């Protein structure tokens, strides 16, 4: 019996056995390969080489499941020197039907259950569990950014997220302004960390608790829509929450929307108009969790029959494969294109093969060298396409880019799209 989204490593024998090392998890889509410089889609491989990429991890998973290997000094690094950015999954699915993301998540969970995970993750985990935010800061400071347009009750809940609440206040403030022009919003009472970092680091039990708390709070609001300006929170609410409940995104009693989708829709309807003129050449960075990782989740159960064909159980239809191509890509592009004075450049690695900024999967905490490599690569790529600025839609991408820019002075400005939208309004 196959249950979509299982977190058990043994449920991915098919994936681990059928991987043929075609390395689509490592290289960009060959049709789009731009040149000899920006060739990889996997930052882990680009930094560490060897087989520190999905195909290597799947073979390790197979050996663990078949009891051919127990442990080794390098095993933990092999599993956790990975941004869990999902690029490998969409690479593989260009041609095949293997669930790479699920396999890697299950492998990570397996290691966590055995207590074999980077000790540097523990602080972040403890922070979320104890203080309900990833920074370990007082819960009451979550709304210190001053939500000017928040109402007591609304059909729209703005889920701010830890990043914008505590560190990137400008994102929250800009979103506040935008939502104010679109009819207002309410905050989620008792908002806690969505749990994304726990999930990304393989701590699924702890994640489950965050999920339950937030869902309960959301249910109490009766709101029909949850909007966020954080890609990680967006993906978590839209994909991971229904998945762990064994439901589909469409089964949620509310819609999960990213701020860029709202703004794009509003621009299209004439509800918003850009007046201000900006003056910049910018490159749009597709955050992993807004793009390839955020396709709606469709729960599925069934079996695998002859030729490997999937046979749905009763009540289910044919399995949907999320290949990363149907993520939220066009709304931010439409928004930027509508701004005056802005020249929007495309990175060489874009859409579902966008290069991860390096701020994900517990990597900045445990492997700062990998995080630094990833962000430096991306900033070099920005310069290579002629950009003066990088724009993204996730506070964590912004933090990463700012850190990279500060440390090694790439001479590239960094913005969150909400800041530009607010400025252009």
């Amino acid at each position: 019996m196959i249950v979509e989204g299982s977190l058990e490593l043994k449920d991915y024998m098919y994936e681990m056995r059928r991987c043929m090392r075609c390395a689509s998890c490592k290289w960009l889509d060959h049709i789009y390969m731009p040149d000899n410089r920006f060739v990889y889609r996997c930052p882990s491989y680009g930094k560490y080489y060897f087989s520190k990429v999905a195909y290597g991890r799947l073979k390790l998973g197979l050996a663990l499941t078949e009891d051919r290997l127990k442990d080794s000094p390098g095993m933990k690094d092999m599993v956790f020197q990975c941004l869990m950015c999902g690029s490998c999954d969409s690479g593989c699915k260009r041609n095949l039907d293997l669930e790479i993301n699920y396999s890697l998540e299950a492998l990570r969970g397996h290691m966590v259950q055995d207590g074999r995970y980077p000790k540097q993750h523990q602080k972040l985990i403890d922070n979320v569990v104890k203080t309900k935010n990833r920074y370990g800061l007082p819960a009451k400071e979550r709304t210190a950014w001053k939500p000017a347009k928040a109402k007591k009750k609304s059909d729209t809940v703005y889920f701010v997220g830890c990043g914008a609440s505590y560190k990137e206040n400008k994102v929250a403030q800009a979103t506040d302004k935008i939502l104010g022009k679109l009819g207002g919003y309410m905050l989620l009472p008792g908002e806690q960390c969505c749990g994304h970092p726990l999930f990304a680091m393989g701590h699924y039990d702890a994640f489950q608790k965050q999920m339950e708390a937030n869902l309960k709070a959301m249910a109490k609001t009766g709101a029909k829509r949850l909007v966020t300006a954080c890609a990680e929170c967006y993906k978590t609410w839209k994909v991971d929450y229904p998945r762990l409940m064994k439901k589909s995104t469409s089964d949620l009693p509310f819609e999960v929307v990213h701020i860029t989708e709202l703004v794009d829709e509003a621009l299209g309807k004439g509800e918003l108009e850009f007046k201000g003129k900006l003056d910049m050449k910018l490159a749009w960075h597709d955050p992993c969790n807004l793009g390839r990782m955020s396709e709606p989740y469709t729960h599925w159960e069934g079996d695998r029959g002859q030729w490997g064909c999937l046979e749905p159980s009763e009540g289910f239809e044919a399995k949907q494969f999320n290949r990363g191509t149907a993520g939220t890509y066009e709304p931010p592009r439409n928004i930027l294109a509508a701004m005056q004075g802005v020249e929007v450049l495309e990175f060489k690695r874009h859409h579902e093969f966008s290069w991860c900024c390096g701020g994900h999967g517990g990597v900045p905490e445990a492997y700062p060298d990998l995080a630094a490599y990833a962000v430096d690569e991306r900033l070099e790529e920005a310069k290579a396409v002629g950009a003066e600025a990088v724009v993204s839609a996730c506070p964590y991408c912004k933090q990463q880019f700012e850190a990279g820019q500060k440390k090694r002075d790439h001479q590239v400005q960094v913005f969150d799209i909400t800041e530009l939208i607010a400025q252009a309004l």
Partner: protein
Amino acid sequence: MPKVTEKVSKAAYNALQNIVGPEWVTDDVAITESYVKGGEIHDCIYQRGQQPPGVVVMPNNTEEVQKIVKVCMRYHLPYTPIGAFWGVHCGGKVPFHVSIDLSRMRSLEWDEKHMVAIVGPGQIHSPLQAEAQERGLYTMTPGGGSQAAVIGNMLTCNYSPLNYRLGLATRRILGVEWVLPNGELIRLGSLATSDDPYWGEGPGPDLRGLLRGYLGWWGKVGIITKMAIKMHPLFLPERMKPVERGMLSTLEFPDNRIKWYNFRMPSEDAMRDAMREISRCEIGAAVMRVPTIWRYRGKSRSREDFWSKWGPDEKKIRDSRATSSVCRVLLIGYTSEEQLKYEESVLMGIMDEVGGELGRTKQSDQSWIKNADSAGMWWPAGGYVSVEFVVETLEHSFARGKTLLAEKESKFTPPLVDEYGEEGWIQMTDMGHTSYFEFLIQWDPEHPLGKYESGEYKAWEHWVASQRTAIDHGQFTANIGSLSVMGLTGPAFGPNYGVIYDKVRQAVDPLDISNPPLDLHDRVIDEFAPKWKEDYDFQTWTDLMHDGKEWWKVLTSRGIEWKDCLPEWYWDRDDKEIG
């Protein structure tokens, strides 16, 4: 029980570390485990001979490669060079081997005016194609896929319909830098006497003869650390643009200079006549007969979608077998737009005469200019291999196809996927002097039918049988050399090519250190399918040449036998439940 647990010694490991630095060498099993090609389900039983390495080392330049090879020599460590590791045959066969992973060596240099690219062993095809097109050039991406290493592929396969105009790989290799198994560095072609690798012949008798044959050695004669290869002039003012994304990503064709045509042919004779005449008139960039199953695959969006159509259409396909094959032609206006128009009119004239009907044809490509879909071969059933992929004349292609089909249908289907009378894929090569023929088979690797009966076994047996039938019918086969049952092909072709083949290999690898052994497939059969020796009438190479005694010097010098190298779980494999 396996006796060999020997790791690479500390002294050898330290020596390797001193060469590349500690971050570029590892013996951690979490990593080495993944250096066995393809896991269990990829090609076939011949993977059973493969082992994780004792050490993986990643050099960054030729000098490091040389030093590593010398360390291996000193400590009698067999090594396996790998580029992209896309070819299953690259995998090492003994547990203490050194895997020399050349992925860091992705250099790419150009002599644009003379249409030469000089690549390192870690370079793959799609960046090469991208950079080539920026320079008004293009290259041939092989059927194996963009992800294949350029050098590795040029040394082994490198077949594509574009061979029609561009020739076989062996002729597109120019100057070469080569680290022999004893660590000596030699240079071929013009690189032998200068720093410019633009020309490949000689000097004098041409050592490129030792780089490969119809197929290659898969790392058995050392390591190529640099290769200059022929590029070709791009016939467009700028590079081709990618469109669509995901499964549909493709290069858009400006159809005034490059254009596909799909013709439905009324008979096999019409197909043959058209292919010959197109070649005789020297038009075209590619001419091929496309297997029916590929049309179904191309139109399906999932495996389930494929099977929902393929299964029910059996009768329809069988009944229209002669006409269900498509003649697919690519025209390129190399000289000008007028050339394409001219060739199109000639093509239509030929097709009119033979009764070919032009069908709808998408003007894009995801397979030959920048191949992105080769992994899709595994998609319909999970197990796939080409039991044959040979270049010979057109009639030979038809004959070989009929031979292999008869064999497949009578002995191996099921469990192989029934392709309803498909006689294989044919592409004209060398402007029609020859044609490339490929016979692809598929099976479900998860179907637990057990030893000798499973899809995996039947696929492999089909491969062995195909060598037997090649010998019996005087047919050429790709399965000669290290990709063959040496005991079968060694005495038959040449005749006795096996003797000088092995001798010439030993001349450059006296220690049998470079990805041994030569006769892997004989050994695997001896272990796992010994009954085939009688069924197909052969002795193993070791029995024929060495009286059944172990001959690899890297093993015999340590008192080890190959049998001792196989891990325990291989023997359990056939009995255990799969899935």
